[in-house]
């Protein structure tokens, strides 16, 4: 891959990794969108200093920003459950998981900021003002400890499956590299959720009933996390940011989790659920995507409270940011 002195349609050569000393006059670029897409189809990996097409830059940025926002909002929910978790052992797990989720947000915001579209602070403010979005599953209320288990088991597994499908073949280098770490830790979370779910499955009748109630609440949001069927010509797929279609991921999830839940003695809150006599695969009812669309526009049942809570956390930490800023000794 050679470098060209002519930036391609709409790419902005002023956008580059900030704060580095670049001893080069040429940025890697491509003569046309066709050439760029050929590069991606051949397994090419894009780096932050490349003069990539603006449309690709924006698509990668929006995707990573949504992921970062979701990790952050998820981390705040997890934090709420540290004092309520039953026993020291569960509290320590909740503490470690909270740090993981907030840590993932930090790593992802750093990768997103290097795309030079928004600074970390701008992303934070946009999230807290409700101008940007986060995954559907953090727009609902967590009612009980078993809800928290359902989130850890069903929701984290869905998030992990969709992240793994990105990691497998992501064309944006820094995102793929940071996902390795994120995925390893999400794996711990899912196993932790599974362990707690199994404990409830083999627990008292009350515990079993509580777990069932939570599965009833969280099954559909977890299945919906994958989103509606991928549109034909979806740019995220075309540019190898994602490697699998939403409906493929959703179906794989259903095949894996229906037997696991039934095995634990639970039912699945879907009257239309059936096993296809021909191919032996589990089929779920048609999903009405309208409520999800509203939820994703921050209009879900618990959206307003969650965003307000995140805003309070941000305001309460103001003095920390101020103290850190005033401690800066030598300007870089």
């Amino acid at each position: 891959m050679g470098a060209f002195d002519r930036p391609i349609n709409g790419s902005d050569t002023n956008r580059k990794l900030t704060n580095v000393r670049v001893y080069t006059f040429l940025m890697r670029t491509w003569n046309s969108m066709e050439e760029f897409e050929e590069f991606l189809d051949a397994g090419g990996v894009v780096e932050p200093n490349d003069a990539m097409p603006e449309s690709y830059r924006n698509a990668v940025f929006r995707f990573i920003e949504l992921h970062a926002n979701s990790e952050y909002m998820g981390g705040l929910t997890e934090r709420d459950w540290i004092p309520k978790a039953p026993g020291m052992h569960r509290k320590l797990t909740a503490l470690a998981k909270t740090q993981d989720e907030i840590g993932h947000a930090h790593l992802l915001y750093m990768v997103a900021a290097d795309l030079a579209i928004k600074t970390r602070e701008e992303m934070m403010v946009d999230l807290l003002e409700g101008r940007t979005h986060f995954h559907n599953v953090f727009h609902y209320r967590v009612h009980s400890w078993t809800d928290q288990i359902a989130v850890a088991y069903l929701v984290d597994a869905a998030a992990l499956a969709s992240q793994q499908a990105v990691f497998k073949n992501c064309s944006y280098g820094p995102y793929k590299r940071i996902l390795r770490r994120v995925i390893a830790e999400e794996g711990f979370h899912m196993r932790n959720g599974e362990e707690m779910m199994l404990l409830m499955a083999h627990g008292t009748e009350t515990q079993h009933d509580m777990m069932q109630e939570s599965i009833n609440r969280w099954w559909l949001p977890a299945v919906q996390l994958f989103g509606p069927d991928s549109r034909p010509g979806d740019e995220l797929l075309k540019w190898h940011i994602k490697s699998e279609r939403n409906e493929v991921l959703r179906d794989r999830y259903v095949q894996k989790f229906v037997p696991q839940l039934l095995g634990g003695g639970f039912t699945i809150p879907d009257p239309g659920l059936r096993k296809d006599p021909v191919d032996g695969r589990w089929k779920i009812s048609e999903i009405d995507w309208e409520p999800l669309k509203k939820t994703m526009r921050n209009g879900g049942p618990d959206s307003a409270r969650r965003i307000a809570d995140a805003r309070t956390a941000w305001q309460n930490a103001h003095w920390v940011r101020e103290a850190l800023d005033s401690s800066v000794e030598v300007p870089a």
Partner: protein
Amino acid sequence: MKTYEVFLKKEGKDPFIHAGSVDAPDDEMALTYAREAYGRRSEGDQMWVVLRCNVLIADEVELEMADRTHKHNDGKLVAELRRTTLSDQS
């Protein structure tokens, strides 16, 4: 805030490997953040934290031109010569 690049090394022969970056107001906080963000699951027993503005990014074209693969010592060519020499002797 300043941006720092974080490198980690595991015990043994592996070299330092880039882990990611952190924003911090000063060196002390950068070390703390780097440790908390990248080093809390035994990812390494040594860590380098470098101010990003001290990283020099080299010209990729010049790097390509610096290619000094062993073209004067082609392994295949030598192996073929060796084979013909040996078969000539037999």
